[in-house]
């Protein structure tokens, strides 16, 4: 385990120095055409390191494609990667460096919402546009008019999940089970509650649990006795798999589907709940098997380059670079931050791997999320 980790870090270190070399060399090579520096603040170490590495992959793939297509005279991108170490403090350092030393045209990142809450204020003050690609917490884009994101919030994903589930499964009464001692799962519950009421679905039973619980049979027994059409669960993945597997052990039939929030969006669900996870329905910002040709091309290219399938974070990063590029190429010069900001704000109906993408007036992402169902141990498309 430890060995593997060391190897991984060494691998990352080598990769990073390679990109550095690459950056330097492109700087010389591309001197003829126009170029724009973009700062990429991702968590390469710390708690969110797992997300940061696929984000970097997604960005690198998009940058390579764009630079190859730009030709001699087109606008080229110079990516400058730095590690926000999953902490706000380091995020601030990285942002300061991007803005004052590297003088980037635009910043993509940081990985975590907690970091974004602090670092994005610096960019806002300096008037440098920021595009968040994985921040889903409330209040990020409210920091100011230079802050954008292409990551959908739960408030968008959940109502869509409920709508599709209602259409396809004809559910009218559900039971709700959620963790009430965690900000994320509680916010998910609130989003579900509003969405369910909006869709005219009655909540016949509400049960809660706490982080670290392992025995959910009392709550599930209560729920079972009320015969709901479906069970709506807002939980992190550890508890989610326990709930799913115990529900089936308590003989709640598979005809009563379990509908989950974003916490369910992890392969860990299938790993730990096994067969019981089949038929679980969960909304997501992106799915590998989305049928658009752009997406198919992306999945294939990513797989060829890195030897693994991309996840949601890679897709959001990849789309983020293309969105940024569109704005950068419309601006008169890469130093004109105001013009880049205005061009970003005007993006409407752009074809991306995430879907038909627009920014809302509040600079949040606007596109139709997918609804997935677990089938043969994988997330398959249930509806869009």
């Amino acid at each position, binding site marked *: *385990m*430890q060995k593997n980790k060391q190897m991984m870090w060494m691998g990352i270190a080598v990769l990073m120095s390679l990109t550095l070399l690459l950056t330097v060399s492109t700087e010389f090579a591309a001197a003829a055409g126009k170029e724009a520096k973009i700062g990429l603040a991702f968590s390469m170490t710390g708690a969110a390191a797992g997300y940061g590495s696929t984000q970097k992959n997604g960005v690198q793939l998009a940058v390579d494609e764009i630079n190859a297509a730009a030709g001699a005279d087109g606008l080229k991108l110079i990516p400058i990667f730095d590690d926000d170490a999953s902490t706000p403090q380091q995020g601030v350092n990285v942002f300061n460096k991007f803005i004052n030393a590297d003088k980037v045209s635009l910043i993509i990142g940081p990985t975590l919402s907690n970091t974004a809450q602090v670092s994005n204020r610096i960019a806002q003050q300096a008037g440098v546009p920021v595009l968040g690609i994985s921040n889903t917490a409330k209040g990020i884009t409210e920091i100011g008019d230079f802050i954008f994101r292409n990551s959908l919030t739960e408030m968008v994903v959940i109502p869509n999940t409920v709508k599709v589930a209602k259409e396809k499964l004809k559910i009218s009464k559900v039971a709700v089970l959620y963790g*009430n*001692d965690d900000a994320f799962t509680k916010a998910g519950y609130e989003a579900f509650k509003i969405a369910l009421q909006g869709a005219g679905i009655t909540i016949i*039973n*509400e*049960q*809660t*649990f*706490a982080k*670290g*619980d*392992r*025995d959910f*049979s*009392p*709550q599930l*027994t*209560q729920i*079972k*006795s009320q015969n709901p059409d479906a069970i709506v669960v807002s939980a992190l993945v*550890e508890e989610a*798999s*326990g709930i799913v*597997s*115990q529900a089936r*052990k*308590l*003989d709640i039939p598979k005809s009563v589907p379990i509908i989950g929030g974003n916490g369910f969006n992890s392969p*860990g669900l299938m*790993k*730990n*709940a*096994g*067969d019981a996870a089949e038929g679980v329905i969960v909304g997501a910002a992106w799915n590998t098997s989305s049928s658009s040709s752009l997406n198919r091309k992306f999945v294939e290219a990513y797989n060829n380059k890195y030897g693994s399938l991309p996840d949601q974070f890679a897709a959001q990063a990849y789309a983020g670079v293309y969105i940024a590029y569109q704005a950068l190429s419309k601006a008169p010069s890469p130093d004109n931050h105001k013009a880049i900001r205005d061009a970003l704000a005007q993006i409407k109906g752009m074809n991306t791997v995430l879907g038909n993408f627009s920014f809302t007036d509040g600079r949040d992402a606007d596109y139709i999320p997918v609804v997935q169902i677990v089938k043969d141990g994988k997330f398959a498309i249930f509806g869009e």
Partner: protein
Amino acid sequence: MNLFLQQLVNGLFIGSVYGLFAVGYTLVFGVLDILNLAHPAVFTLGGLTALWLVETAGLTIFQAFPIAVLIAGLLGLLLDRVAFAPLRHRADTYFSGLISSIAMAIMFESVALGVFGAHTVRFPANTVTPTIWRFAGITVTSLQVEIVLVAFLLMVGLTQFLKHSRTGKAIRAVAENERMARLLGIHVDRIIAFTFFISSALGGAAGILFGLYFDAMSPDMGRSIELKGLAVIVLGGMGSIPGAIAGGLAFGLSEVLTVAITGTSNLRDAVAFAVLFAILLLRPSGILGRSRMREA
């Protein structure tokens, strides 16, 4: 009514796992008057070892169970050797033993972290294929029945062993009065080591059963049962084996019924510990404990 019965079954089930865990806890306490706070860590390692045997070594659970239980027992011997025996003749042995057992718990947990990683893991889906039985509107899986049966067999076996066998009698003698036992020619150190072996083996068995049912094992899973086990043995009367069983069942039932009635697990521990508090006030020796007399 069916709903209530089903909740009783749920409570009986989790209660029997608590009981099995607490029996090992209370055994050491009865003999040594020392709380072995590494017991939850042995519980964790027992479960994770069985998982390793099934997943990596390719054994069936019926082969893995006794081997993992044996390994848990050996961990108990190690505990005794490293954490308790060197301190036994010091004046502050009760306190220092408690502290050194915490240290061992941390080490065991770190070993589990290093070997198995921090992820939540589970037994492969086909380890046991439970059949679901339904009668009178209640659902019981064969796995649940097996777990309750194994727990009770082990508990009954232990009680009989302590009552009738020669070693069992020696354990009780040491519990009653160590000096007298020594004078009678009982090899006290060996008996204490053996007690640790039995205690930890039972703790490991509880860990395996827990992991089999909840499908969620992690290096910190002992923490979720640590305080409960402590509460159970206080509830049942410190050092009393039937008390630990009764206490485990009572605790499991109170937990399940609290959640069932309130619809939230927030009050679960509050009610359970409030009951514990009341018992301590009204009947300080616990449900089945007799004052100043230990049954080992």
